[in-house]
C-alpha cells in the first residue's frame, strides 16, 4: 500500500515541472500575441489554433491517416530489411564490411532528396516513392543499432555457453538475440518517429498532393495560418503516436526491464 503511494508521489514529482512549463508557455504565448498585436502570419494564438483543430478535424484526420499509412508501411519494410541485414552482417564478414561504411556515409546524406528519383521511377501518382524513402530512412538506425546489439555479448555468457559446448547458432539463439533486444528497441524508437518525419518531408518533394505536408503548404499559401499551425500540431501528434507505440512495444517485449524493487 505504502509503496503505491510513494510510487504515485514520485511520478507526480517528475511530471509537474514540464506540465507547469507547458501550460505556462501556452498562456504566455496567448497573452503575448494579444498584447503585442502580432499578426497571424507570424504567430497565431493558441486559442485560434485549437479552434481550427476542432473545426477542421475531419480533413486533418484524413490527411494524417494518409501520411500515417505511408510512415507505417515504410517503417515495417525498413524494419524487416534492417533486422535481416543486421543478422547477415553479424555472421558474414564481407557483408558487414561493405554495409557498415555505407550506412555511416548514408547517415550524412539527406535521404529525402531521393524522392524525385523515385517519383520518376514509379508513377508519380503512387504512394510507393514516399514509402520507399521512409523505408530507407528507417533502415539505417535499425541496422546500426541491431548490429551493435548482436555483436556485443557479455563475456561471462560467452564462456558459459562454451562450457555447455553450445553451437554458434545455439549461442546466437539463446544469448545474442535476447541480448540484442534493448539495442533493437533503441533503433526502433529513433526509426518510428523518424518514419513520420520522413513521410511528411517526402511529401514536400512533389507527387501526390494528399497527406499532411501538402495540406500545410496549401494552407500557408492561402494565408490560413491558424489552420496551417493546426495541421502542424496534428503532424506533431502523429509523430508522438508512433514514438509512444514504439515505447509500448519495448515495454511489452522486455518485461524483465521493469524495475520491480529488490529483495535481499
Amino acid at each position, binding site marked *: 500500500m505504502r509503496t503505491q503511494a510513494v510510487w504515485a508521489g514520485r511520478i507526480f514529482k517528475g511530471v509537474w515541472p514540464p506540465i507547469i512549463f507547458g501550460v505556462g508557455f501556452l498562456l504566455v504565448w496567448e497573452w503575448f500575441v494579444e498584447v503585442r498585436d502580432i499578426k497571424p502570419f507570424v504567430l497565431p494564438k493558441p486559442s485560434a489554433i485549437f479552434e481550427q483543430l476542432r473545426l477542421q478535424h475531419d480533413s486533418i484526420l484524413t490527411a494524417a491517416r494518409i501520411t500515417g499509412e505511408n510512415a507505417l508501411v515504410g517503417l515495417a519494410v525498413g524494419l524487416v530489411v534492417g533486422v535481416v541485414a543486421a543478422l547477415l552482417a553479424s555472421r558474414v564478414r564481407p557483408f558487414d564490411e561493405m554495409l557498415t561504411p555505407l550506412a555511416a556515409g548514408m547517415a550524412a546524406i539527406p535521404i529525402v532528396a531521393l524522392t524525385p528519383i523515385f517519383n520518376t521511377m514509379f508513377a508519380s501518382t503512387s504512394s510507393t516513392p514516399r514509402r520507399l524513402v521512409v523505408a530507407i530512412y528507417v533502415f539505417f538506425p535499425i541496422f546500426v543499432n541491431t548490429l551493435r546489439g548482436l555483436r556485443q555479448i*557479455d563475456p*561471462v*555468457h560467452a*564462456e*558459459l555457453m*562454451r*562450457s*555447455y*559446448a*553450445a553451437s554458434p547458432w*545455439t549461442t546466437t539463439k*539463446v*544469448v545474442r538475440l*535476447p*541480448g540484442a*533486444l534493448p539495442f533493437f528497441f533503441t533503433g526502433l524508437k529513433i526509426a518510428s518517429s523518424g518514419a513520420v518525419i520522413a513521410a511528411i518531408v517526402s511529401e514536400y518533394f512533389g507527387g501526390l498532393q494528399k497527406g499532411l505536408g501538402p495540406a500545410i503548404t496549401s494552407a500557408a499559401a492561402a494565408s490560413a495560418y491558424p489552420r496551417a499551425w493546426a495541421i502542424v500540431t496534428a503532424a506533431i501528434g502523429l509523430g508522438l503516436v508512433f514514438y509512444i507505440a514504439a515505447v509500448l512495444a519495448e515495454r511489452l517485449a*522486455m518485461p*524483465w*526491464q521493469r*524495475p*520491480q*524493487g*529488490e*529483495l*535481499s
Partner: protein
Amino acid sequence: MVTPAAVALEGIGKRFGDGPGAVLALTGIDLTVAAGEFVALIGPSGCGKSTLLRIIANLIEPTEGSVLVNGKPASRARLDQDYGIAFQSAGLLEWRTVQGNVELPLGLHGVGKAQRRAQALELLDLVGLADFAEHRPSQLSGGMQQRVAIARALARRPALLLMDEPFGALDEMTRERMQSELIRICAETSAAVVFVTHSIPEAVFLSQRVVVMSPRPGRITEIVDVPLGARDEDVREAEPFFAAITDVREALRGRGRAPVAEEGPA
C-alpha cells in the same frame, strides 16, 4: 572399477603470445584431484589460477601438458558435459526467470520440458531458493544470484564443479553463509570441486587441500593439507582453523624466507 580422478593435470604450461612479448602464465603444473575431493587454488594476482581453471574447463588450450577430466581429455569432458562451472559474476540471463536460468543447461542438451521443470525446482530447493523460481534475476541480491548460478552449475549432476571466485563480489557475512551452504550442497551431491579464491580463510574452511600458487610464471609452490574434519560453524572459531590459516599464509609467503621487518614498536 576404479573411479577415475576428477582432474588429472600433468606438466601443464601456458604461454600467451609469441616471441619476446610472450607471457608465460603457467609452467610445470602437476595436480590430481580425487573424485569427491574439495581442492582450493589460492595465490596472488597473476599467478594463473583462473587460467588453470579455464584450462581444466577446456575454455583455453594449454601450450604443454595434458588435462584429463574424469579420465577423459578435457575437450571430450566438455562435450560430454562432465563438469559445471560458476564464475565470479553470476552471469544469469536477465530475460529468463530464475527457474529458466537453472533450466538453461538442461534445455540445451535436450531434456524434455516437464523433466526440466522438475529438475530445476529440485535444484533450487537444494540451494534454498525454491520460492523464487518465478522471479527475475534483477530482483535478487548478489548472494541469491550466485546461489542460482551454483544451482545451474549442478544441473547436469556433474562429477566436477569448477568455481572461479564465485563469492568474490559478496560482503563478508554473506560470504561465510554461502560457504556453509556450499559445504552442505557438496555433501549432498558428492561432486569434486576445484575452487579458485583470493581469501585464505575461505580456502581453508572449504577445502581438504589448498593448492598454493606463485606468480610469474605461475607454478604450484606447495599443497597444504587441511585436516579439519566436518566443516560446521564452530570450526571457524576453533584453534585448528587458525593454525591451518597460518599454515597456508606461510606457504603463500614462501616458507623459510625471512619475514618482512615491521616498522615501529612491535
